[in-house]
């Protein structure tokens, strides 16, 4: 262990543009989990028109957004693409969520309008599907030493992502839809890029993943940083277990909703039952 306090350099990309559903919880998790261990951190926020020095970033956050915001981010990302790619090739850690995941892929074809070209660091393609996947998710992950665990959270996306031969999935779906609802994969990995459809506070609720990202980020900066000090994580463990229970409720597994509330003008009840994991169609609003 180095004697001087270590500092993780975090870069939060598009904090106002791509932050739709509690995604900043991931930043809070990294900050607190550093503080509790006496590790220092710095946070650089880079919105549109700002190109941060990616060569001085250890951990980059790229979160989700709605269609319009994603389009704006895609346009701006062209200016950041070169240095961001270089940082990824040099082993910088990236957590990419939802729209952020799609932007790192090769392309995204929305339901309407021209396709969006992504950064292409992940060998995946995404196209909008006819309905949204909405519900709790559980995923079995094996990310190498110190990176085994069950990932749990909530998905809400109409994009269907398919992995090419150059991408590995982040994990295997235990409950929920995952990348496309067909092949049982969730998310994608490449070098130290970790991409997922699980939005919101995925790191607070999955402290093992937060710590895996932190230790990889420290390894990116420091030669010899040793293992992270353990934390009690009582609230985290309880929340993780509760979210896993919700995802794995037997009657509420992911299933295709037969009737589309948007197509039935006058359902007997004001809305379709909000069964967790049910697919509710939002055909015109892909993400």
């Amino acid at each position, binding site marked *: 262990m180095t004697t001087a306090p270590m500092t993780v350099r975090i870069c939060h990309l598009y904090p106002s543009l791509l932050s739709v559903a509690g995604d900043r919880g991931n930043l809070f998790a990294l900050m607190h989990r550093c503080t509790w261990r006496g590790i220092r951190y710095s946070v650089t926020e880079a919105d549109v028109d700002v190109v941060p020095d990616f060569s001085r970033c250890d951990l980059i956050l790229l979160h989700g957004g709605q269609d319009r915001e994603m389009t704006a981010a895609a346009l701006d990302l062209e200016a950041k693409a070169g240095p961001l790619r270089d940082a990824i090739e040099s082993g910088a850690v990236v957590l990419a969520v939802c729209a952020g995941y799609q932007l790192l892929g090769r392309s995204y074809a929305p339901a309407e309008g021209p396709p969006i070209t992504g950064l292409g660091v992940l060998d995946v393609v995404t196209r909008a599907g006819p309905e949204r996947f909405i519900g709790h998710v559980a995923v079995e992950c094996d990310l190498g030493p110190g990176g085994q665990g069950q990932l749990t959270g909530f998905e809400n996306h109409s994009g269907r992502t398919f992995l090419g031969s150059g991408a590995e999935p982040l994990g295997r779906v235990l409950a929920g839809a995952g990348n496309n609802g067909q092949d049982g994969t969730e998310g994608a990995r490449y070098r130290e890029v970790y991409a997922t459809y699980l939005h919101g506070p995925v790191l607070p609720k999955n402290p093992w993943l937060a710590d895996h990202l932190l230790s990889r980020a420290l390894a990116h900066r420091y030669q010899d940083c040793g293992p992270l000090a353990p934390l009690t994580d009582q*609230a985290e463990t309880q929340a993780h277990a*509760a979210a896993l229970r*919700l995802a794995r409720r037997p009657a509420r597994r992911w299933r295709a909703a037969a009737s589309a509330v948007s197509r039935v003008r006058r359902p007997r009840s004001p809305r379709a039952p909000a069964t967790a994991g049910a697919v509710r169609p939002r055909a015109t609003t892909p993400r």
Partner: protein
Amino acid sequence: MRIVTSRAPDRSEAGQTPVAPAGQARLTLALAGGKAAATASRVLRVGGGTSLPGIVASRIDPHVLQKATAASDARKVVVTGSNGKTTTCRMLAALAQAGGLSVTQNRSGSNLLQGVISAAVRGTDLRGRMDAQLLLLEVDEATVRLVAPDVRPDTFLITNVFRDQLDRFGELYSMARRLEEVIEALPASATAVLNGDDPLVASLAPGASARRLYFGIRAASADAASADGTVPEHAADTIRCVRCQQRLSYRAVHLSHLGDYECPACGNARPGLDVAVTAIRPSRGGGSEITVETPAGTFPLRVSLPGVHNVYNAAAALAGSIAQALPRPLEPAQARQALADLRPAFGRLEEIQAGDRQVVLAFVKNPTAYNTTLREVLRRPGRKHILAAHSNTVVDGEDFAWLWDVDLEDLVPHLASVVSSGTRAEEVALRFKYAGASPAAMEVLPSRSAALDRALAHTPPGESLYIFAGYTPMRELRSIMQRRGWVRPSWEE
């Protein structure tokens, strides 16, 4: 200035309905069934009868809402939006009554389809005639496209649109699109009352034929403690131009993304306000003294409820009431009286005496509502004892990621204790931990009654327990307090 009437053309004979005899019989049966259900649910004490009558009546006649409202001469007002619906409706009802109209409305926030039908059943006699001169309906923003075609409102009011339950409503823009369809379907004789300070709401359906009436705040600054200068808070949603996606620049931000905005790129700016709050001063007792300029004159009003969000509600209600053709012009003095006496709706910072302690019950369902509540609570002195409860239900949704967009970090330095509860108690506790709460000050008790007991035990006599809760746990906690005799049933309000 007299506002052009927005009423439908008078029918020659009151109560004469366009319903065919067979349809009339079915309607009568449906209304009788609904009324019987209302009586039964009260007698059997299974609730306030806020949705059962609607369920029964629409089972008997699926077109009960359309028939009952078509047969009525009443003016129809539909109020929707993310936040402030219930309070705006209470204010609108008070103003309309001051202007000489009798009012039927759905109460207790029963704003889904069955609650709306229940209100129509309650307000209609067995022949389908409505006594009241104003049918005032608060409607959930996902339900409004089902209600509006049947009710055919003369006035359609949108309070604001914030991000809310993405798992239930979908994206903000798809919600906006559905509201737009309702405005586009309004006839030219109808009025769309829109929040001009909300960049998304103000831009809805620009080509629609209905008259538009914009309300908003033109005061130099809202009350100092809650005005945020010119930068929207983290949870603000529509901070980019809805036309060109440039970041909006604000001359003033009053609440979340509500304010005086302009797009530096395309020139899209806040529209001219028809009903404008031109001055806001704090008043004794925590409310606001405001001056509102309208086409019907200048109104100096006292808003008894605290916070700039209630200034918006008052402006919305005043705009909604002057959109009606009132039997007599609304006198400023009457309007002032009507609003000055208003108490909060249940669960809206409702103060409840719980023995020698006080409970402040706050319904929080999205980041903006939660942040607004936090600001009000933090104005009060002392360290705060909190009960925070959320449950995953059909009404409350499954996804509580939005809790991470609430600025709970502002509360934590003033936190004495927090008990988290509801079926998502663990999620709530995790949020408080990462807001900086000390694990020693936190407890997780999913049972609502156990959590209430424990949180009250933490609260010293003479002090207040603040309850922040989603809709379902808020109703549950309120019924527990009702059984203990601390508070009246919500349907008696």
